[in-house]
């Protein structure tokens, strides 16, 4: 399979990428790892006329500590995140999440920024981004801004990014007690349900992916949390639960409760 014709440019800076996005509008796509985009282009589900390769932008593939925060560059691959000592020691939940994405080859090429911008409803990072209250740093023609994780995901493959913006980094608070729990779709390795839980004192923050078209914070679970796992029964309260040939609505709703229970008990 060969994608439709397109032009390709490898940019050396964020501003160059923004200029290209501005120039080409919705005919352009950002290419990071390409592991969602290229298959979609081969299947002709996506036919961008211009690919802007951002993998060569220096400084966008680093992981650093900034006081109480860990800053992960958008171009960090899943395998770089999974093997980072800093992430493993200060933000272990993110390492857990990165380790269960796809397979070795996919983790070697796919990036956190690409995955978030793509916003596949069955991708793993959204649950963890939400539970950690991470902030997504983006840059566009009108400058830099920071988007709260809870405001970032708007729907299936839809985010708060505007046409001329790209993600530059993700800023996480350090997390002591957090874990990610995933029920794998056995062929694709995507999440049928993925639940991230971050515990702080008597409270918990719960992020859920795979269940709805938009990943969400399970606020009903958080409000009902009493230190036990009984709040898991609220996992899909007021949630529009997806149904597909891997998991119907009833099954997926039940599975969400089971996975939230596991996360609360962890």
């Amino acid at each position, binding site marked *: 399979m*060969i994608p439709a*014709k397109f032009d390709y440019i490898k940019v050396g800076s964020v501003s160059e990428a923004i200029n290209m996005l501005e120039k080409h509008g919705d005919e352009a796509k950002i290419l990071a790892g390409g592991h969602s985009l*290229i*298959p979609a282009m081969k299947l002709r589900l996506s036919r961008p006329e211009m690919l802007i*390769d951002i993998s060569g932008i220096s400084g966008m593939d680093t992981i650093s500590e900034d006081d109480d925060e860990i800053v992960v560059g958008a171009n960090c691959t899943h395998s770089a995140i999974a093997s980072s000592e800093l992430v493993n020691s200060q933000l272990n939940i993110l390492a857990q999440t990165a380790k269960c994405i796809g397979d070795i080859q996919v983790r070697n090429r796919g990036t956190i920024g690409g995955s978030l911008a793509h916003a596949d409803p069955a991708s793993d990072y959204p649950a963890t981004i939400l539970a950690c209250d991470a902030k997504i740093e983006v840059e566009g023609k009108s400058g830099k801004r920071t988007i709260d994780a809870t405001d970032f995901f708007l729907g299936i493959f839809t985010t708060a990014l505007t046409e001329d913006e790209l993600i530059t980094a993700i800023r996480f608070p350090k997390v002591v007690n957090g874990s990610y729990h995933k029920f794998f779709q056995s062929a694709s390795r995507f999440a049928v349900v993925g639940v991230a839980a971050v515990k702080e004192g008597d409270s918990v923050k719960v992020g859920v992916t795979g269940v709805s078209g938009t990943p969400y914070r399970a606020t009903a679970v958080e409000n009902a949390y009493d230190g036990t796992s009984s709040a898991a029964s609220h996992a899909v309260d007021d949630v529009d639960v997806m149904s597909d040939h891997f998991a119907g609505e009833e099954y997926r709703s039940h599975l969400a409760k089971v996975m939230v229970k596991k996360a609360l008990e962890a």
Partner: protein
Amino acid sequence: MNITVTINGEEHSHDVEPRISLAQYLRETLDLTGTHIGCDTSGCGACTVTVDGAAAKACTLLAVQVDGCEVTTIEGMAQNGQMHPIQEAFKENHGLQCGFCTPGMVMTAVDILKNNPNPSEEEIRHGLEGNFCRCTGYHNIVKSIQHAAEKING
């Protein structure tokens, strides 16, 4: 677009269309047909090569993305007529039946053993998550990689 790629230690320069995948470039321009194309959408792993030492699916990489990189394909594993220990181990343990998935299995094994020289059976099985063998010969593939680890570790 002109690219220069080091493949199996040898530098190659070609003018390629941006939409040509690395797998196609290897097979059709360089005649390196050991890199197989199965699903062509990054699911099956038959096209696995290493790019700068890390396993990657060549069907889901554009040739232009590896400009300036070092690529190793299955053809680059044997040295001076001597099979690589991973290849020897596959031969000795009957690690292949039809052989279609084998180049990808071997190239993924390179990555598994690079990061974990003494993998357990479970770690090998997890490492092969992105490689399908439709003969379902996984048992001997896992055994081959365990044996390869022993050979490499001496």
